[in-house]
């Protein structure tokens, strides 16, 4: 990616990290593909997450604990840590970049207005959830989400996604990924409470925070600290993972191809 575009994206990322803190719920209107009114959840709260990439060691403890907590099928992830090897071409120095991914619980979530049966909706506390009893499994939301945060759960045959572990938040617990993070890289909290840790961290690092794919105007509410602008959009990277097929052509695992 050329440097001009990269720095523009970086500015965009910073800009929307700030703008996203302004509640957009008042913008909801009745036009086609506009955000419907939010329902359920505590209207006095707005959950968000800050991920301090400087603390992430890529151990995938969040991936595993989320998988166990939420019983996702093998191969599907509500959260996962993408890992990249970055080689400085002049010096040959190699570093690893970790990028935990999960639903961004966007202020302007593209997955919500597309749902034809209102099975997926945004709660008043900002959490985007799916009513799996109502979901028809049309997968429209899966295609609509630019972050690949959604998948069709083969067990329930309905759309599945990160809920910020709403069931745990309601019981006064932290989400599984936050609870298990060894570096304390994931901070969740109510951004409307000025005394919350996430509010203080956002205040402190406002100019450094970035979000993923800011140009999509989804206003993500998962903020990254210590982010490299090149990773806010689809990375210009070599695909390094190859399927390993057994003698009968069945997949037996993955292999790192470089």
């Amino acid at each position, binding site marked *: 990616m050329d440097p001009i575009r990269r720095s523009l994206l970086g500015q965009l990322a910073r800009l929307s990290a700030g703008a996203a803190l302004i509640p957009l719920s008042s913008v909801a209107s009745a036009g086609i593909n506009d955000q419907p009114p939010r329902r359920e959840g505590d209207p006095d709260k707005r959950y968000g997450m800050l991920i301090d990439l400087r603390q992430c060691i890529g151990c995938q403890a969040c991936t595993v604990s989320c998988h166990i907590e939420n019983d996702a099928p093998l191969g599907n992830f509500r959260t996962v840590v993408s890992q990249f090897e970055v*080689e400085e071409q002049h010096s040959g120095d190699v570093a690893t970049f970790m990028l935990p991914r999960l639903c961004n619980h966007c202020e302007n979530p*593209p997955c919500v207005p597309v749902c034809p049966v209102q099975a997926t909706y945004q709660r008043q506390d900002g959490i985007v959830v799916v009513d799996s009893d109502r979901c028809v499994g049309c997968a429209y939301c899966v295609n609509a989400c630019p972050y690949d945060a959604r998948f069709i759960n083969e067990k329930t045959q309905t759309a599945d996604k990160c809920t910020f572990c709403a069931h745990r938040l309601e019981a006064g617990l932290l989400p599984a990924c936050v609870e298990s993070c060894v570096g304390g890289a994931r901070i969740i909290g109510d951004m409307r409470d000025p005394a919350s840790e996430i509010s203080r961290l956002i205040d402190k690092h406002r100019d450094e925070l970035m979000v993923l794919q800011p140009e*999509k105007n989804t206003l993500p509410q998962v903020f990254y600290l210590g982010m490299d602008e090149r990773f806010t959009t689809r990375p210009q990277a070599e695909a390094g993972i190859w399927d390993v097929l057994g003698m009968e052509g069945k997949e037996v695992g993955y292999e790192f191809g470089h």
Partner: protein
Amino acid sequence: MSLVTEVVVPRYGIAWYPWAVQYFFLIALSYSTLWLAAPGLVLGKPAWMTTARIALLACVSTTLVAPVALLADLHQPLRFWHFYAHPTPWSWMSLGSFLLPLYLGAVVLLAWLAWRPALKARSRQDDGVFSRVAGWIAWGDWQAPRAVLALVGAGALALSLGIMVYTGFEVAIVKGRPLWNTHWLPPMFVATGVIGACGLVLVLNRISTLRSADTNRQMLAVLVGACVVTGFIALTWFLDGINAVSGSVAAALDSVSQSAAWRGTAMEGGIAGVLLAVLAFVMRRSAARRKAMGWVLGLLALHVAWMFRWVVLMNVQTVARNSAGFHDYHVAFGSYGLLGIIGIFGLWLTAVLLIDLFVPWREASSDPLAGPLAEPDASLSASIEGAPRHG
């Protein structure tokens, strides 16, 4: 400069299966053939009557089968009633779920009104079970005035506009897939739909043994027009892109530059499209060539219309959004893949054969009061056995 290599990234499957291609293909054939039937059937232009009869058969059969493919693409097909229990006016798909049954009803009603005179005539013949069935389908001994047929036709045409708009925008509003996110996609769906519809009518004209010269001439004329419009839309989309208006073109160029499979697809699509346009233009000029090769061109037109949808709906889903490269996608053998594709075509063939068996669609009339033989047609009368009995 630095070199970035992915070490751990998840793999994402596709969310819409080939069922979606089948739905978008059949529904496009459906609304396009309805418009091809309109001059003869709704406006009552005699020169277009044979085309209208073939197009009506194509329209009814595709309209009946398309929703089956759509239903099959749901992971919870038995929950389809949720669409009606929870109307969602801000979702294109929900709007479509209300438009589609209305459209289907209007098309079936239109066909029924057009076929009734012929069905009544057949029910009076001594043709055993076929006469009995024709009598049941005709349902009563009344005659609808021509105005009713024209009105129902106008209603179906109006609803078909809704189908064109909703199927196009349903896909085009998805910002998450930059290749879809262009205003040129809905008109492109319609233009390639008309190409496919001309192809289908040309093929049916041949295999139904009607072999109407008028139909060949008319369909090739429309086909040439649709090819020109399609080319114009593609060019405008591309010019938009190189002037940086559309991220859709940038994404397409990225894909083509990075993937040999995409280069192959772009090449195949380009060649098929240009070949179709050139052949259509050349064949249009000679009646003999039209007669000999019209159906071959028809198959090519169907191929172009289907492949466009396959590339747009399936291949675009393999473009990774958050990782490098492309997702592997192989068409499975089961109902999510090959069996589904073939099954839907089989279902369509079944629908055509059943209609052909029980409905004298070759005698469809634009005027329910005029009776089946009110419009003598040299190419038709030879194929209608027993017709003189009603003189």
